[in-house]
């Protein structure tokens, strides 16, 4: 594109790409930043203010008069509004009508001869000449500025309490075998479809291409029935890891065969013919020549299949179930959306844990992913 290199339009190109990149990364960035914020701050301010000091209005109640102590002939109730959370009090008050009537450090005259002093660090004293009466403590309204605070507490909480750790293991248990098992089966089939002569080959290729787009929804009910029958027949549960591995294998096979066949068909014919002249059988040729040469295509498919099985929700909840012990990460996240819909500190941290593995795979192996996408989709150009 040398034509436009020096034109003033280049600036427009740079700026619009920058804008699009920001637009596309902002949502994920917001999630990541939010998951690291203090949960109280997260609930009251947007993540884009994460670096700014946030100001909050709150109300606390002093202990009841029973806890007063006598000091120098006066009766005192003391405490701290911020309870060690850090921050700074800027204003306070004792009635909801004027919650910020006094500045920090000032002394407010309460009713019946008591006085209230609140310092900027949150410590307060209620002082009275006579013994204070009543059973309820004084309400104190205050405005506090809290410095930004980042923490891993949210992650600690979801890993231990929300069942995310368990689901993480479940997801791995589902995804790894579901990725490995179809590869071998598909590779043999792809070799047969690419390099062996037999009647019906063209029809089989057409069938594989057709099956590529069969919606998963078609398979759900019949397979659920089949699994229930087989489970009842064998006297085992219908929802097993073996069942979901085989299901993912079946659903992944068309793409695997298609990708691998296209790749193998592109390998040079001479290699195979010279091997055949040397007396190698199809089996030898496949294992010793084709399989090693097809590594890029195998890697592409493996990445696809891993991302797909890790990110899958539908197959997992239908064939593995929604019990606490079997729930995969995506299923857990859907449950949390329902039960902890307002607790963004839980949701953001959980969501980040569910997407971190695919993201690592993505950034580490992007080259193969792109190659696979191109092999799988560009037809005829």
């Amino acid at each position, binding site marked *: 594109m040398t034509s436009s290199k020096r034109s003033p339009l280049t600036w427009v190109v740079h700026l619009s790409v920058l804008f699009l990149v920001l637009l*596309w990364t902002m949502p994920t960035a917001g999630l990541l930043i939010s998951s690291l914020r203090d949960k109280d701050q997260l609930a009251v301010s947007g*993540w884009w203010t994460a670096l700014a000091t946030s100001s909050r209005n709150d109300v606390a109640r002093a202990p009841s008069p029973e806890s007063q102590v006598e000091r120098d002939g006066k009766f005192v109730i003391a405490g701290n509004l911020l309870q060690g959370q850090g921050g700074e009090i800027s204003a306070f008050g004792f009635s909801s009508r004027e919650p910020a009537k006094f500045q920090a450090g000032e002394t407010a005259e309460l009713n019946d001869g008591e006085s209230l002093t609140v310092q900027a660090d949150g410590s307060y004293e209620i002082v009275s000449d006579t013994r204070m009466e009543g059973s309820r403590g004084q309400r104190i309204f205050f405005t506090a500025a809290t410095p930004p605070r980042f923490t891993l507490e949210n992650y600690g909480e979801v890993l231990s309490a929300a069942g995310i750790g368990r689901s993480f293991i479940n997801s791995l248990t589902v995804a790894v*075998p579901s990725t490995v*098992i179809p590869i071998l089966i598909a590779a043999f089939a792809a070799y047969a479809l690419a390099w062996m002569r037999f009647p019906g080959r063209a029809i089989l290729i057409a069938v594989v291409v057709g099956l590529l787009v069969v919606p998963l929804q078609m398979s759900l009910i019949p397979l659920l029935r089949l699994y229930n029958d087989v489970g009842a027949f064998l006297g085992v549960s219908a929802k097993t890891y073996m069942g979901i591995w085989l299901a993912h*294998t*079946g659903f992944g096979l068309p793409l695997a065969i298609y990708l691998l066949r296209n790749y193998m068909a592109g390998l040079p014919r001479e290699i195979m013919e010279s091997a055949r002249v040397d007396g190698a059988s199809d089996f030898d040729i496949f294992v010793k020549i084709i399989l090693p040469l097809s590594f890029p295509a195998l890697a592409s498919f493996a990445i696809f299949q891993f991302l797909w099985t890790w990110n899958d929700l539908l197959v997992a909840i239908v064939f593995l179930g929604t019990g606490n012990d079997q729930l995969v990460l995506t299923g857990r996240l859907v449950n949390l959306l329902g039960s902890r819909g307002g607790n963004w500190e839980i949701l953001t941290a959980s969501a980040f844990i569910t997407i971190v593995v695919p993201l690592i795979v993505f950034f580490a192996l992007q080259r193969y992913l792109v190659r696979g996408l191109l092999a799988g989709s560009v037809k005829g*150009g």
Partner: protein
Amino acid sequence: MQLIAAIATMIAGVLACAAYFWATNFILDLIFPSKGLSGPAASRNLRITNTIRPWLFLAPALFALTIYLIYPVIQSVWLSLHDRAGQNFVGLRNYVWMVNDGEFRQSIFNNFLWLLVVPALSTFFGLIIAALTDRIWWGNIAKTLIFMPMAISFVGAAVIWKFIYDYRAAGSEQIGLLNALVVAFGGEPQAWITLPFWNNFFLMVILIWIQTGFAMVILSAALRGIPEETLEAAVIDGANGWQIFFKIMVPQIWGTIAVVWTTITILVLKVFDIVLAMTNGQWQSQVLANLMFDWMFRGGGDFGRGASIAVIIMVLVIPIMIWNIRNAAKETGGH
């Protein structure tokens, strides 16, 4: 522990697979040896093994494809003509019910909205971004970042966007980005995903966000495949950037655009996770795939109705399937 068991099973499975292929080949060669024999016997045995061996290679794959894809398609059609437990034949009653069901009609309407908007916008943004990033030195970094959502699950994406659409009552501080922007420009905050009709578009944004990267990668490769000469000729003829893009480049990659478009269309027809996680079909945002899932389990599960909705999804996919098969046949015809 569970993981170790899984890995052990996996290794066992792979070994069993390898053993199957090795053993069947070994037995085949044992029964019909071609080495060491001479003349007609050897060539006869060679012919027999060459006829049988492809099917040995294909057998496991064909078995899995049949059980997991072909049999279910037939079975779904059969079930759609039966009652909720799949016992009694009811003819077309499930389909009649469907046509008269408000929720189904809502889903069909919404699915068509999705089909109109998502493939079009994903392909459009993908094309624009592919064209723009090819011109700048940090284009590859930009592409990686825009491609990234592709790795994120639909459910993860749903959480990310639900956070953006988060709603707090007017007057209190908004922590959702969209409402914060709306308030900053003096508007009223809205509970976006509960607004009937418009909420569909807020859900579509999620899929567009994910799929634009896919469109971009494919179209970028196609753009690079355009012969330089056609562009140089256009420059010499005095064409400007816009004309080169729309009149020279885009027409040359129509085939690829069609592939991207149809691939995303198939995905849209199956969209399920996003709707389930965001609204579960409430506030008139139901789509076919989620409705189908709903009927699988609703009230103990109605397999007849669920299967008939699945059949509708399948019918919508069939034109693309035929188009794909014809394209592939054209391509392999030369092989």
